[in-house]
């Protein structure tokens, strides 16, 4: 399955850079700063909006989150070049023909430029830890790079309604810029939470590795055999999605392929793809997501999304109906 093509009409892309899924739909943001909701079965856009500011740069991440116990879905956009996190209500999206004019229904925004608490340089992805009852957000993890690479942790302010959080309080952060074996990042690009194991999985793009952390920021392990094209090696892992059976799939921006890792063993389970323009080939993939029985790879350089079927249940997603890489 393939959908998307270059262009500025709804359903077309101008270098899309992040993807996530919501039920039978996917959400994609491209370099026109358009947040599009697309039906992969038809390839048509069903709605969306344009980010309010885009001259400085466009978002490189998107997270779709629905409380596990049910409730309103939220579209969380780390607005990378405006140093903030924006939370939208998808019910307020514009019609496809109004995509460029619509600004969506923004329900919360926080963050500013800087290296202080609650500030960001370039936020790239957001991961949500639900409350134990699944009714709302317990924590919001925000990933950033720009020389002050770290993960900041926020919690909803007291008095908020679970499932409708709009105000957040900075709690703590962990990580610093670097390439060492400690909690050091060099352009961390995407992040996921494994709810079964209470782990945070992070792609550390310019160090060409995957990191496993506890939810309190302690390093469990680094995974990856350094930069390269070999199995187990990575070249700029940008996209990340968790599969069933403690497996994680990364989209390698530099390697033009996707690779599946066993998170416990720290080993590669296989790679797929090669650089190219034909079907099945990839050009600078930025993201990857699980959609129904397929894996969707955001083939950014080819302005399309390619879907691959899940062979033998290998890709069965583990308790994750939404959320995705940035």
């Amino acid at each position, binding site marked *: 399955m393939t959908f998307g*093509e270059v262009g500025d009409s709804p359903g*077309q892309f101008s270098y899309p850079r992040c993807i996530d899924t919501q039920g039978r739909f996917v959400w994609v943001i491209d370099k026109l700063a358009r947040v599009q909701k697309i039906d992969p079965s038809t390839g048509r856009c069903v709605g969306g909006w344009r980010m309010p500011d885009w001259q400085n740069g466009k978002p490189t991440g998107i997270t779709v989150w629905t409380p596990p116990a049910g409730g309103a879905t939220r579209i969380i956009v780390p607005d990378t070049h405006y*140093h903030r996190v924006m939370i939208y209500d998808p019910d307020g999206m514009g019609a496809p023909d109004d995509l460029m004019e619509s600004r969506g229904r923004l329900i919360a925004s926080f963050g500013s430029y800087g290296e202080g608490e609650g500030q960001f*340089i370039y936020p790239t992805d957001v991961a949500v830890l639900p409350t134990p009852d699944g009714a709302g957000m317990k924590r919001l993890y925000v990933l950033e790079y*720009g020389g002050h690479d770290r993960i900041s942790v926020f919690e909803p302010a007291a008095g908020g309604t679970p499932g409708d959080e709009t105000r957040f309080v900075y709690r703590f952060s962990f990580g610093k*810029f670097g390439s060492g074996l400690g909690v050091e990042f*060099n352009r961390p690009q995407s992040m996921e939470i494994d709810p079964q194991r209470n782990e945070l999985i992070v792609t550390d793009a310019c160090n060409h590795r995957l990191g496993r952390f506890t939810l309190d920021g302690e390093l469990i392990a680094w995974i990856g055999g350094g930069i390269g094209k070999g199995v187990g090696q990575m070249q700029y892992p*940008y996209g990340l999605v968790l599969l069933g059976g403690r497996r994680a799939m990364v989209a390698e921006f530099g390697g033009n392929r996707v690779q599946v890792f066993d998170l416990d063993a720290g080993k590669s389970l296989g790679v797929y793809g090669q650089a190219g323009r034909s079907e099945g080939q990839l050009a*600078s993939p930025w993201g990857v997501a699980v959609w129904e029985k397929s894996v969707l790879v955001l083939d950014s350089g080819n302005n399309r999304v390619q879907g691959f079927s899940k062979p033998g249940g290998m890709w069965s997603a583990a308790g994750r109906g939404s959320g995705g890489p940035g």
Partner: protein
Amino acid sequence: MMATSFTLASMTVGPVQFDMPVWLGLIPILWVMVILMSRRSLAGLGTITRWVAIFVRLVVVALIPAAMAEPQWRREAKDVAVTVIMDSSESVPTSKQKEAEDFIREALAHQDRKEDRLGVITSAKSAFVQALPSKLTRGVERQHLGPLDGTDLAAGVRLGLAVKPQDAANRMLLITDGNQTSGSVLQAAETAKAMGVPIDVLPLKYKYSEEVIVDRLVTPASAREGETLNLRVVLQAVQPAKGRLTILMNGEAVDLDPDSEGLGARVDLKQGINVLSVPVKALSTGPQRFEADFEPDVRDGRMVGDAVVQNNKSLAVTFVSGEGKVLVITEDAAEAQHFLDAMSAAKIKCDVVPADQVPTSLTDLNAFDAVVLFNESAYGFTQKFQEDLRQYVHDTGGGLLMVGGPNAFGAGGWIGSPLEDALPVKLDPPQKRQMPRGALALVMHSVEAPDGTFLGKKVCEAAVNSLSRLDLAGIVEYGWGGGTEWVHKLAPVGDGTAIKRSIQNLMFGDMPDFTPSLELAYEGLSKADAGQRHVIMISDGDPAVPNTSLLDKYVDKKITISTVGVYPHSGADTSRMAYISKYTGGRHYHVNTAKGLANIPQIFIKEAQTVRRSLIWEGQPFLPQVLLGGEALRGMTSVPAITGYVVTAEREGLAQMTLKGKEGDPILAQWQYGLGKAVAYTSDATTRWNTQWVSWASYRQFWEQHMRWVMRPGGSANVRVSTENRGDQTVITVEALDAAGERLNFATFKGRLALPDGRGLDVDLKQVGPGRYQGVVQSDQPGSYVVSLRYAAPDSTQQDGVIEGSVQAAVTRPYADEYRTLEDNTSLLSQVAELTGGRVLTGIAMNEDLWTREGLKMPVALRAFWLWVAIAAISLFLLDVGVRRVRIDIPAMWAAVVGGFTRQEARKAEHVGSLKAAREQARAKMVQRASGLQPEQAVAQAREAVRKAERLSGVKFEASAEQLKRANVNIAIGGAEARVAPTNPPPLPKDAAAQPGEGMGRLLKAKQKAREEMGEEEGEKQ
């Protein structure tokens, strides 16, 4: 029902098309032959077998001609693609363009088949694809990036044909007012017709009922200082109109009516042509720029009597001759003081300006008879000025003097510049010179600004062009195919061909991290044998920063990094890039405006100059050698010593070197370049390298002689030039009088016309009357043209005397024809529709189906499959053989499969045994009956017995049986082992021994042998 069509060229049967259907005619003939032949050859087969065999043969002989008929599988397209060509030029009123956009949007809403496609092309002066034909395109929006002051509809149609999809039927929709300023849409429509693409048209109809056009401003092309010029303004009004006319002279308004307030004059225009005369006195020399501007009266915020403002202005230029002057460009007037004093003493008027205040047009440059570049770097000037300056010398006859210094010539980045062509020296040092060279690595990141990729390539070329051929240059970029790499390895520039090829292939990948690129650049540069090593990095600043240890390595090796931040995402990006530059001793440039973007090539030239410092020679004083023949050096046999100069190379051809330095390097050279002259002095004119020169007695004489040699000659004749625009052409008329006021006859003119786009054209003038000369030139571009004429005529007052001189004039095309149109041209559009089989749409989207199939031939994708037909024929032929020659014993085969290999062997032996038994039985019967039968009958019975044996055995294995007999093989029958002893084994035939088991031939021979054997036995018994 199966569709069938037939033409001489092809035949279609259902989904199959035969390209050579004539071969199909063989089928009935072959069928008759097969049936006739099969009656005899298949007579021995059983009824069913025979009919099966006949059927198979008929199919085989049908398939062979079918394969030869070149069958192709047809797949007909179902979709229709409509490419909209939208006229975005300024002649179309904005309201009409909005109507067109609404029309398309509404048509999309009423689209029947959602799989049909829509593409969008905008066309003005040139055409651009806005959206390729796609089912996702939702409408047209004007996003035309190119100039809008022209219409080339043909370019739009041609582009539409180029991008039309092959797997859909195509239509085009031309939305325009039908007014084109270039190209021929009818010619393009012919092409569309030939390609089977109908063009529907949607005329954007309008007619200006109120409009005023300033048709032209007529001024004399040339005049003398102090003369009163009679300006004529020609205005065209559709209806009587009132307004204010303003005349500007060199940007300042002329007071047309001293009695009224304001500087303009109120005018009442009658319907039709209005001519107004305005006298103006020429108070200064050089080009005088005039502008006539009409402002209509405004009532209730609306213009009265006028609709289009772009055509309310007209320009004209008059060249006013007077005493010549020189433009001296220097950044430090004090440094040039000795030189300026010399000019002053020689009574040569000079205007002294820094590089950022030079004239911005070629016309303004022509106010000067020569231009002096005093130790000036190339990066101080725009590319346009450099081109103007080259054109100023070559096409308008101006003079050029480049005076050296550490910032001049090759050391100043002039290598590869447009001006290099005008200089009498080569800026690249000769290969024989052993000089330290520079090494430059360009690190390229994606530039997200509009036209970023194009710009990136231009800056790379600018940087590489300014290097000498001995310098090393390389390019590092992030390619999507696998990370950071040298797209051009660090290597000598040479003639630049190889690196420019690499530049054209640049992809400007989105680099995640600076480190790998800078590591790669470091690795290359640190090993390079070069005196100066430098990196220029262009980026939007968001890749991850390099670590300090890498930057320390740069510092250790004295490799500098300059960074160019293009539209950086934030202040953080800027500060990071600036940090990298500062750390390594380079410079940082911040580019976040369109103007800044345009200057990036200059930045790269300046940066590339960093590696060109090695072109400067400095050392002990030495005396340059004076070479004879230099007209400007007359009277001088020696010059003082110098201590430095910029190394250049002698230019072959007409250039003349007059002072020679170390190893034959030129110090002073001169030549005629086109209509003008140029002098290069590679040392300086100050005390830096010329300590003894400034106190030299002949210093003033040296510079005065060179300046007078290089300056454009004034001339003594009274030559007046007038120009008149006629359509796309301009008629240039020259009236020439000598100093006595007599008409100047038999003059020869050498002229050039400098075009607004930087090109030049020769002007050919012919004498058309006493003292009157005329020529015609093409002038279809809007803008200012400069006509430069050098003349020579016999002087009637002196024996063998010659009158020489030069004169300039200007031609102005104030605005494009785009703004002259007052109504639409629907008739042209109707022609286009009629020619191509398209429709003239009404503009009511509900009534129009843009994607109609009417008049369309759906394209068919053909896939040849003759090979498969041929393979089927061969397979069936083998089956035919099998049917007749081989019987398949399915139970036996099944038993073999089930029983495995051992059982299979046993079964095989059983078969062979049964065959043998049958044969023995047949023979016994033959022998027995032969005794009581006629020989013929005996033979026939024997044959029948053989056939029976064949049927019994199920498989004809005569030859194998014979071989088995002869080989004395052990054969298991019924689980017991029996030895079969051959009876009178005959010798094996030679060919059979040589060719064991050769299929059909072997079987036939074995069969023949058996029959002969049986015949012999019968003979013996008889």
